[in-house]
């Protein structure tokens, strides 16, 4: 028996969805690539502005101080350029989200009401990221922010200021804020991973006299490696695509000190109104995500 009858019959399940995807997702992606080389992808509208085709946009974007600011990097001052800001974001966010996620997941597994605390921490994943960005700005505010309240309490009054409005702290406050928002993700999937580890394994280790550190590094961490790879991939992708948080809190400022790739694309589109260059930024961003996406796809389709 041929499952699903005729080819047309089987395809008819796919067709409505595929039509929408093709018109509004696949074609725009292809068109963005074409546009980034100064070739008009949409007949009837001139969005090139008479520029000649070629690699010019990529050259202009890659050599722009908005993308990489060599002066900022040399002097270790912000802005250092969008790509560097994204890299700093990943460099700080990734290890912290993995360590925090794993430790908190272990911790909450063993305390009363752990599930409730976990759902508190998960709230950052539920709310709109625009609100997330506002909450970050709010929490780092000189007068209203809890961060500064704590700094004052522990005697670091000199650090208490509106973090998001100064070039040297804007990016760091957003990164810290994103850790606060995103840890719910790693805690949740680490918790699911922990729950799948058979209790006997850990109990046997305890009987054998293993201490907490040994159990953590010799049993839990190796067993949760697939989970860690998932957290890794998702976090990197999230950090590369980050937009709403920055838009809501600093708009990439002050003076570009918290500019990131996704926002740079918007900047070229809406403010500069150079659409081919905006397309080039989008394409560069997408290319950077690709290795991670491929790793993720390999995980997602494993065993098929």
């Amino acid at each position: 028996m041929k499952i699903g009858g005729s080819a047309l019959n089987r395809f008819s399940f796919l067709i409505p969805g595929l039509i929408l995807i093709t018109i509004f997702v696949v074609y725009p992606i292809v068109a963005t690539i074409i546009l980034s080389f100064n070739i008009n992808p949409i007949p009837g509208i001139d969005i090139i502005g008479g520029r000649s085709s070629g690699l010019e946009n990529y050259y202009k974007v890659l050599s722009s101080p908005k993308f990489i600011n060599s002066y900022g990097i040399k002097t270790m001052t912000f802005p250092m350029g969008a790509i560097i800001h994204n890299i700093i974001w990943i460099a700080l966010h990734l290890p912290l989200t993995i360590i925090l996620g794993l430790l908190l997941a272990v911790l909450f597994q063993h305390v009363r009401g752990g599930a409730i605390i976990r759902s508190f921490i998960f709230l950052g994943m539920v709310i709109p990221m625009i609100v997330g960005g506002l909450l970050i700005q709010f929490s780092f505010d000189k007068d209203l922010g809890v961060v500064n309240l704590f700094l004052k309490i522990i005697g670091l009054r000199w650090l208490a200021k509106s973090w998001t409005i100064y070039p040297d702290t804007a990016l760091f406050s957003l990164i810290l804020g994103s850790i606060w928002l995103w840890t719910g993700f790693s805690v949740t999937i680490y918790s699911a991973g922990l729950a799948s580890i058979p209790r006997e394994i850990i109990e046997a280790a305890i009987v054998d006299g293993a201490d907490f550190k040994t159990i953590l590094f010799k049993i839990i961490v190796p067993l949760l490696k697939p989970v860690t790879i998932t957290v890794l991939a998702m976090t990197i992708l999230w950090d590369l695509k980050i937009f709403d948080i920055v838009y809501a809190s600093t708009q990439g400022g002050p003076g570009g000190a918290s500019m990131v790739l996704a926002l740079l694309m918007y900047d070229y589109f809406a403010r500069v109104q150079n659409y081919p260059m905006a397309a080039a930024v989008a394409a560069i961003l997408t290319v950077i995500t690709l290795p991670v996406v491929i790793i993720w796809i390999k995980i997602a389709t494993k065993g098929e």
Partner: protein
Amino acid sequence: MGSRGRSISGFRGGLLGSPLKWLIINIIAWVIGVLWILPFVGIFMTSIRPFSEVVSGWWNPYPFSPTLKNYVEALFNPMFSLLRGFMNSFIIAIPSTLIPTMLAALAAYAFARFSFPIKNYLFVTILFLMAAPQQMTIIPIFFMLHKMHLLNTYLGLILIHSSWGIPWITFFLRNFFSMLPVELEEAARVDGASNRQIFFKIVLPISLPGIISAAVLQFAWVWNDFFFALMLIFDPDKMVITQMLPRLKGQYQVDWGLLSAGSVLAMMVPLIVYAVFNRYYMGGFRGWAMKR
């Protein structure tokens, strides 16, 4: 008894040590949990008090005179009425949930059960589309919608959200359908049922939990989205709530009274959805996390 108690409460006795240690660890965990939600508490407290009371910290308990003034001002703001934004978000999010869930369910079933040419290529393509940054699609979308006279319309944004939702829901439901026992469908096929009958009469009813998960997360995703709305809607009358929030900020001094009320209003809906559909929400979580 003592040693038996230890082994039953395994972790408590063994991994974390003595009862005192257990108590300390519990306290630490709860302190972390409370610290974590302080910004939420803060924004809520700020939203229900006059700004003069919170200007030196929302944690100061006195004087405490709760008021809905901030909410009234946000909801009926003359420029960016959040009441309007609230309604617009629903107008956008409901069809943008129903359309892709329906279309993706059909496609997912084909991926789960049928064999057809280039199936694997198509599936991998869909995975790539799931991960694409919104920025990668928006410029052509902007000009296409402009040509179709759908820029700055509900319909335009709904079309984009629906299309954008199909890949991840297809992936998610395809995994869900693959887990279903195939025997029921085979029996129906032997009895002469068509694909469509099998899908709508058998598969769909038993897949309701998966469908609800997908719909709940798609709804939350569309509600929370900012970028597509920012790019495709310009009239204050048509703006969604996430889009209005940054505009409530004020030019020089941030008006936290207004903004805190707006933030609470904007996050209320996804928080309620999360609370009410918790099981479904967490059920679809992994597929959805990819979309962020």
